[in-house]
């Protein structure tokens, strides 16, 4: 299982790349008159009280990140095209490049993308007035059928993040994938050293120590240490909640970052990585974490995306058979509250085809599509609870993985991405990185982070 992004696979298996075969990174398909069997019977959608064909003949341009969702949904896209008569054009890019492209598009009012991936910058974009709120479309009966769509089947956390993480009253986009933090460990090492899977942070630290000290060439644990708002603080934000605080105890005047809880959480994470982490832990990104684990050079990943699962158990991994998954640990006296992250898809104010885009969103996140992607495809990131409960799916991905994910998701609390989160988050993560690198204490770092964050809002 490839992490599922290269256009390598999808270009060819999608359908006969008609018009844009030469396109590079899109690997796109825009087949209108697809011949062969449709992946999902149209009947699945025809129950809905939605006027699917009202935009027949138009086309939408989707800007997407190189992400498993894209490869998972592409085979089903002909279904949408058949259903609506709308052509779908893809523009798929690696994450960092996509950000640049998206920003250029919206900030210059180009409106190239009718649908685009949306993440931590959602409130930033929303406040700039670049994002088209979806509520008017939800209210439009020809576009949305609540009974059929069952919005409540979406995880609470996902819906919350699609509302700007609490900062928006309206839908800023439709969640398409969710990932939640889980714990990965080496079953063979656990057996060897007779270890129990940790439920608490204390146990986890113990386990890490045991492995670190008794194994040569294997570090106790790995975790994201590099800066960036999606990096080390993505992990730390979990712990700080579990240590009993939250970000922005008082928005926008008190970031809460200098509270005891945050400092304790930071100290715990910092010392964990320093004591039992790899050399240069402070510069490890998710890919280093993943690679280190894949190479069998680490005992655990304390907590990271459950989406590592395919990578860790697939052919890229030298320890594929020995990876265990469990819920992320939490403090003995704290509350389990793993971080979760949704990708959502949004549409911009300048987009030509926002309504068509909405139809696509509805279709893409609908139950039939989702279920098909997860049962027939190799997806494992559904935002729909029903999918995680689907037996076929569970047996495909493994009971254990599904159950851990489901339970975690039910308790999950994603980060609230306030509009300047990227900005202060970046600085906050820099501070944390400094602490991990041992340049300053966790307390100093967090105090600094707090003042930076508050300063950014004071202006």
């Amino acid at each position, binding site marked *: 299982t490839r992490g599922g992004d290269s256009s390598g696979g999808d270009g060819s298996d999608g359908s006969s790349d008609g018009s844009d075969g030469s396109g590079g990174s899109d690997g796109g398909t825009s087949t209108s008159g697809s011949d062969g069997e449709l992946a999902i019977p149209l009947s699945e959608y025809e129950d809905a009280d939605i006027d699917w064909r009202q935009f027949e003949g138009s086309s939408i341009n989707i800007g997407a990140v190189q992400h498993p969702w894209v490869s998972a949904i592409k085979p089903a896209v002909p279904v949408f095209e058949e259903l609506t008569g709308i052509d779908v054009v893809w523009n798929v890019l690696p994450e960092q490049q996509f950000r640049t492209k998206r920003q250029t598009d919206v900030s210059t009012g180009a409106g190239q993308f009718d649908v685009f991936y949306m993440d931590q910058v959602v409130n930033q974009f929303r406040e700039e007035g670049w994002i088209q709120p979806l509520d008017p479309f939800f209210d439009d009966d020809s576009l949305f059928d609540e009974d059929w769509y069952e919005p409540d089947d979406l995880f609470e956390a996902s819906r919350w993040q699609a509302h700007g993480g609490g900062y928006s009253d309206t839908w800023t986009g439709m969640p398409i994938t969710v990932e939640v933090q889980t714990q990965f460990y080496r079953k063979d090492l656990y057996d060897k050293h007779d270890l129990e899977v940790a439920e608490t942070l204390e146990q986890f630290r113990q386990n890490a120590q045991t492995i670190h000290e008794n194994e040569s060439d294997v570090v106790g644990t790995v975790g994201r240490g*590099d800066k960036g*708002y999606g990096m080390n603080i993505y992990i730390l934000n979990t712990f700080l909640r579990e240590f009993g605080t939250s970000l922005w105890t008082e928005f926008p005047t008190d970031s809460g970052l200098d509270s005891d809880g945050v400092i304790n959480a930071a100290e715990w994470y910092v010392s964990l990585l320093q004591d039992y982490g790899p050399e*240069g832990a402070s*510069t490890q990104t998710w890919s280093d974490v993943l690679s*280190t684990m894949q190479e069998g050079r680490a005992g655990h990943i304390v907590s990271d995306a459950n989406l590592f699962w395919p990578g860790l158990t697939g052919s890229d991994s030298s320890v594929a058979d020995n990876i265990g998954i469990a819920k992320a640990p939490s403090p003995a006296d704290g509350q389990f509250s793993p971080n979760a992250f949704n990708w959502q898809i949004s549409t911009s104010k300048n987009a030509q085809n926002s309504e068509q885009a909405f139809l696509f969103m509805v279709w893409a996140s609908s139950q039939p599509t989702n279920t098909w992607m997860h049962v027939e495809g190799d997806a494992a990131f559904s935002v729909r609870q029903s999918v995680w409960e689907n037996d076929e799916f569970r047996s495909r991905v493994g009971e254990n993985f599904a159950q851990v994910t489901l339970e975690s998701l039910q308790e999950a609390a994603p980060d609230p991405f306030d509009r300047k989160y990227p900005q202060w988050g970046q600085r906050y993560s820099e501070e944390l990185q400094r602490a991990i690198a041992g340049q300053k204490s966790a307390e100093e770092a967090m105090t600094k982070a707090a003042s930076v964050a508050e300063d950014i809002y004071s202006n």
Partner: protein
Amino acid sequence: MSTPTQTETTPQSTFARLRDLWNDYLPYWFMAPMVLVMIMITFFPGAYDLYLSLIAESTLDVFAAEFVGLRNFETAFTRGGAIHSFVITITVVVSALLLETVLGFVLAALVAGVGSGRAKSFYRVLFIIPMAVAPVSLATIGRIMLNSEIGIIPYVINTGTPFAAPSFLSEVPLLTVILLDAWNWTPFMFIIFYAGLSSVPKTLIEASRVDGAPMWRRYVHVIIPYMKPVVFVATLIRLIDLFRTFGVVYGLTGGGPGTATQLVSINIYEQMFINNQITVAAAIAIVYLVLVVALCNVIIAKVGFEGVWD
């Protein structure tokens, strides 16, 4: 050739007229396309950045724009970490430039002196290749190769040498950036210097040998002065390129750890694409442009680019 319009022929047929027109105004024809392209790629972007740097919020509607004077510049320097990035940038520029220039020249001179044609070709091709590794590939693969746990380079150092490998990205990030840049871009200097060396007339070298100059003085007094325009230009261009280095460093360290490798270009990038403060980014860019232009002017005034024949 100081008179650009010295007539070459007396006009006869239409064809001849056209040809004369071509020849008589040759310098203008030669310059025109370059000037056109230059106008296109400098004036508008420059003006646009200047405009952005003076307004409150990015908008394409000039009439709706709210001009805020120098506020963006203030933000850049008080909050934006601009000064820090300038310092970091200058550190990287100076050290990498020195390293690359010296290394590039030494390698070029050594390769030029290789006796066997095949060996020469081999070195010549090989030494240019690093430049062809795309920045993000280099950064990504560099990261994994330098990874303290699973990287091949620390592994080789640790097992193959008596030294312990430092943790490249966290302990010596600046050095790592400089060394990687040197690996990546010494070829640039190498190739230009090499070409420059091969245009030094052989007799000059012979004359200096007869004059009793030892090898290094021959380079210092005869060869390098002869190549001065080439050395100067290569160094200046590399200097400018170093100032705006982005891809490899961003991919390698993202400007970290902390802000240890926060180059100006990374700063601008973050202001623009992370903080969404396009106007502040533009302000930094303008300051940056002014500084680099000034620097280049100073360098040109001090060193001059006149060749041996002027």
